[in-house]
C-alpha cells in the first residue's frame, strides 16, 4: 500500500518528467477501464494496487493519467469519505480536474429536484476526500488550482459553498478586510469552511472565480453579496445586492456542463489535419 508521505516526492518527480508517456502500461489502463466500466471498482482498485506493488506508485500515476476522464470519474466516485483508494491519493491534479467534469453525469433532473442534499453531500465527500487525502500542502494547492482552472470545477466548488452562503459571505468579507491568512473562524463552523479557506489562502484568482460563480451579479465595490432569504425575495431584488445562486441552480449548471458526445463526428476532409504542426 502507498503511504501518504510517499506522494509528495512522487509528485515532484512527476512534475519534472512531465505528463506520463501515454505508451506506458496500456494493458493495465485497458484492464482498469474494463473493470470500472463493468461496475467492478473493487477489482479495478485491486489492479491498481498490484500495479503499485509491481512497478511503483509512479506507474499508477501514469495509468491514471491515461484513463478516459469519465472512467476515472466513475472509479473515484466509488471511493469517497469512508473508503480510501490509492487512486484518490495518486491521481494527478490535471486528471482529477478532467474527471470532475463527469461527476454529475448520472444526475437526473428528478434527482436534482427531489434530493439535492444527497447529490451535494456526495459531491462534498468526493472533493473533500481528494483534496484532503494527503498531508501534502503542495498537492492540495495544485488540485485546487487545476480544478478551479475549469468552468465545471468552479461550479462544483460553488455548489458546495452554496450550502453555507452566509458563512462564505462572512469569510469573503474577512478575507477582503484582513487578508486570507488572518481569517478563518466564522460564526458557525460549517464543513465547507476549511475547503474555502484552503482556496482563499493559496489561490486568490481561484477564490475570485468561485465567488463570481456563486454571485454572478457581483460587482466588487459596487454591490454587496447577499444570501437569498428563506421567504423568497423576488420583490426586493435591489441593485445594491448581488444575490447568490441557489444550490439547486448550481447543481443544474453543473449537470449541463457534463461533456456530451460530439454531435457530429468531424467528416473526413479532403485534407488530413496538421494537428499540433500548425505551430511548427
Amino acid at each position, binding site marked *: 500500500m502507498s503511504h501518504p508521505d510517499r506522494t509528495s516526492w512522487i509528485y515532484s518527480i512527476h512534475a519534472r518528467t512531465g505528463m506520463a508517456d501515454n505508451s506506458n502500461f496500456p494493458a493495465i489502463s485497458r484492464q482498469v477501464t474494463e473493470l470500472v466500466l463493468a461496475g467492478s471498482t473493487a477489482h479495478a482498485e485491486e489492479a491498481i494496487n498490484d500495479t503499485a506493488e509491481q512497478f511503483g506508485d509512479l506507474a499508477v500515476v501514469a495509468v491514471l493519467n491515461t484513463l478516459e476522464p469519465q472512467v476515472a470519474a466513475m472509479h473515484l466516485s466509488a471511493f469517497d469519505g469512508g473508503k480510501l483508494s490509492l487512486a484518490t491519493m495518486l491521481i494527478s491534479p490535471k486528471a482529477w480536474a*478532467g474527471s470532475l467534469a463527469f461527476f454529475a453525469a448520472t444526475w437526473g433532473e428528478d434527482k436534482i429536484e427531489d434530493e439535492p442534499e444527497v447529490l451535494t453531500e456526495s459531491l462534498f465527500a468526493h472533493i473533500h476526500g481528494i483534496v484532503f487525502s494527503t498531508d501534502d500542502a503542495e498537492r492540495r494547492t495544485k488540485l485546487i488550482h487545476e480544478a478551479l482552472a475549469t468552468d465545471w470545477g468552479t461550479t462544483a466548488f460553488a455548489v458546495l459553498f452554496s450550502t453555507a452562503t452566509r458563512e462564505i459571505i462572512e469569510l469573503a468579507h474577512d478575507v477582503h478586510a484582513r487578508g486570507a491568512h488572518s481569517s478563518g473562524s466564522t460564526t458557525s463552523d460549517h464543513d465547507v469552511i476549511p475547503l474555502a479557506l484552503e482556496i482563499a489562502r493559496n489561490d486568490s484568482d481561484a477564490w475570485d472565480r468561485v465567488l463570481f460563480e456563486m454571485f454572478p451579479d457581483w460587482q466588487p465595490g459596487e454591490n454587496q453579496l447577499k444570501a437569498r432569504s428563506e421567504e423568497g425575495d423576488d420583490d426586493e431584488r435591489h441593485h445594491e445586492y448581488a444575490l447568490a445562486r441557489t444550490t439547486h441552480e448550481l447543481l443544474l449548471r453543473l449537470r449541463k456542463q457534463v461533456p456530451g458526445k460530439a454531435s457530429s463526428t468531424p*467528416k473526413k476532409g*479532403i485534407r488530413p489535419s496538421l494537428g499540433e504542426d500548425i505551430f511548427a
Partner: protein
Amino acid sequence: MRNQYSQQVNENSAMQLAHITTHPPHLVSALEALARRADNQEAAQTLLDELSGITVLVAKKFTNERTADGLLDAFHLTVGCISLGISQANIPQDDDAQLSFLLHHGAEYVFQMGFRQIKELSALPFTAFVSEFDNDPFVQQRDIKVLFAEICRADPISSWTGDEVYKRELQERQNNQKIVSCAKWLRQKHYAGPVKDPDLDAHAVIAIAVIFAIAGDGPIVARARQKDLETLIQGVRKSPPDIDAGWDALLKKVPSTYHPVLRERMNEYRNTIVEKILSNTGIKTVITELQNSYAGSEMEVDYD
C-alpha cells in the same frame, strides 16, 4: 460653455484628419465573401470544423481549454493568426481572392503561415542589444507567446490592425538586425583580434568604430579603453585630421551591405560628438558624454 465647446468642435473639424483605414480581420471579410457565394454549405462546414479544431489547439497551448474564457481568448487568437496569414500572403487585396486562398489551402495551413510569421518576427532582434539570454529556449518561447498575443488578438466584430503592427514591427526589427550584424562584423575585425563577449551593444560598437576612424586610415576598433579614447582625442586635437578621408577608408574595408548603417551614423556624428572631440571642451567632459551616449558598455573604463 456651450459656445466654447462648439468652437472647439469647429476647430477640430477644420484640422486635417489623420488618414486611418480600419478594416475587420481578414478572416471575417473572407467569411463574408463566402456568405455571398452560392452553394457554400460544404465549404462553410469544412471551415467550421477546421476553425474549431484550431481554436481547441490554441486554447490547449496558450490559454485554457477548460473554461469558456480560455476558449474565447483562443478563438480571438485564431481569428487574428489566420488573418495575419492571409494578409501577408502574396495575393490581391480583395475579399473573394482571399477567400479562395483560404479555401484552397485550408484554415490550418493558413494559420501555420501566420504563426510562422510570428516566429520569424520573434527571431529578429527586438533591440540592437544582444544578450546571452536571447538564446535561452524558455525566453524564446515566451517572446513568441507575447508577440502572438499582441499581434494576433482579433475580435471579429471590431476592426483589427494586427497586420499593420506586424509590418511596423518587422521593419523595425529588420533594421535592428542590420545594425547587429554590422556590429558583429566589426567585432570580428577588431584590431586586437575578435571580441568575444556574449553581450553585444551594437550601437556602441558602431559608435566606437566610426569615432576611431576620424583619425585616418587605421585598423578597425570595435572596443576601446578609456585611455585609447583619451589618446585619440589628444591626437586629433594636435593635428586636425581629414575626417572624410578617414571615414572613406573605413567604408572601403567594410562590406557594402553595412554602408547605409555606417553612413547614417557618420552623418549623425559629424556635427555632434565629432565636433565636440575637435573643440576645446574638456577631455573629461567629452569622455563622459562618449561613455553615456555613445560607447556605452563597449568601453572599458578601468586603466591598466
